[in-house]
């Protein structure tokens, strides 16, 4: 039997909004550690990994590991019926083929419940080890979202380069080119407004902007976004969920125009 109760139900609403455009159907995996998901988009270029740790829930019961196959758009429709201040409870019985969402208003005078059929989804989980990245950029999430949106009005791809000077986002298109440089800036009023650039090695990678613009749907989850880059690895765009976990997006780079038809080099 699975029963999870989250007082800050809006977190779950925001989580679904952040992933439903990228992935249609996915398995939510529940274990004693927490509630998680790992899924690729249909093109297999991007991957999303979600973790909500059990400690972050007000009540967390998961008798045995289970995977629930869910259509994310449908789950999002149900969650949109919850008020932003509602307490959300997720329930599923072992062996059952449905999951129930219950929303309680903070004053307990309105209670809604929604039942949804589960699906059988065959998904492969990828092993993603911890890695040392060549460069890690931490910046305000709204600023990163704005940069991706602005650049996509000019080009389809963004080159992200990190040097000692900072991080540069570049694009080019029919109308011209654009470069946006963000320098390290820690002398700000609030820590979440800081831009921190950690560089072990200079890095330059090209990515499709349309995926970045899907990732930035997670902006409401966190004031800051962490972008981890390595020359031979997918970029990791992470939005931390306070006290609970994270949503991480992984994006494989584009092939450079003059690159040979070979695999990514070590």
């Amino acid at each position, binding site marked *: 039997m699975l029963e999870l109760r989250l007082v800050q139900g809006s977190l779950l609403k925001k989580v679904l909004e952040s992933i439903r455009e990228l992935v249609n159907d996915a398995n939510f995996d529940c274990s004693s550690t927490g509630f998680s998901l790992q899924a690729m988009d249909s093109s297999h270029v991007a991957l999303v990994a979600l973790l909500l740790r059990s400690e972050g829930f007000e009540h967390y019961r998961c008798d045995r590991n289970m995977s629930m196959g869910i259509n994310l758009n449908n789950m999002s429709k149900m969650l949109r019926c919850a008020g932003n201040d509602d307490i959300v409870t997720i329930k599923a019985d072992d062996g059952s083929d449905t999951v129930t969402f219950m929303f309680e208003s903070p004053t307990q005078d309105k209670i809604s419940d929604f039942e949804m059929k*589960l699906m059988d989804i065959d998904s492969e989980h990828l092993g993603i080890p911890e890695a040392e990245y060549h460069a890690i950029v931490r910046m305000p999430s709204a600023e990163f979202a704005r940069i991706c949106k602005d650049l996509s009005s000019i080009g389809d791809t963004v080159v992200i380069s990190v040097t000692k000077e900072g991080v540069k986002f570049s694009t080019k298109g029919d109308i011209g080119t654009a470069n946006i440089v963000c320098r390290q800036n820690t002398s700000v009023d609030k820590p979440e407004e800081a831009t921190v650039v950690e560089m072990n090695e200079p890095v330059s990678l090209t990515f499709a902007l349309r995926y970045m613009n899907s990732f930035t749907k997670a902006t409401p989850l966190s004031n800051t976004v962490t972008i981890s880059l390595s020359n031979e690895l997918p970029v990791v765009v992470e939005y931390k969920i306070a006290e609970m976990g994270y949503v991480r997006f992984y994006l494989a780079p584009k092939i450079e125009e003059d690159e040979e038809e070979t695999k990514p080099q070590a």
Partner: protein
Amino acid sequence: MPMKKYYRQRKKAANNRSSKSKKKSKISRVPCQAEYDPEEEILRKFDMDMAYGPCVGVTRLERWERAQKMGLNPPQEIERILKSDKDIKVQQQCLWNKKIGDNYKIIEYYMAA
């Protein structure tokens, strides 16, 4: 230089559906192909059918046309699917291809568990 496998395989996480539950759910779950539609399934079978030669290094259409020229009679259906432009999910590259269009696939970096 051969493709370097960067990451080791991960142990498969336990799945409750295969565990010993006493009662099977009476209502069957809705089956779903999360990642690709029936036409992609047909194209993958074509990729794997060795009668038409290796699939790596050529697009599916090139391979179909090659098979046609060699008198191997590849199914007309394959050509029809590949030339139809209604479904953006139809992949022109074979299933082993590490790229989709000009983008690498994420699965080229991380091994399946």
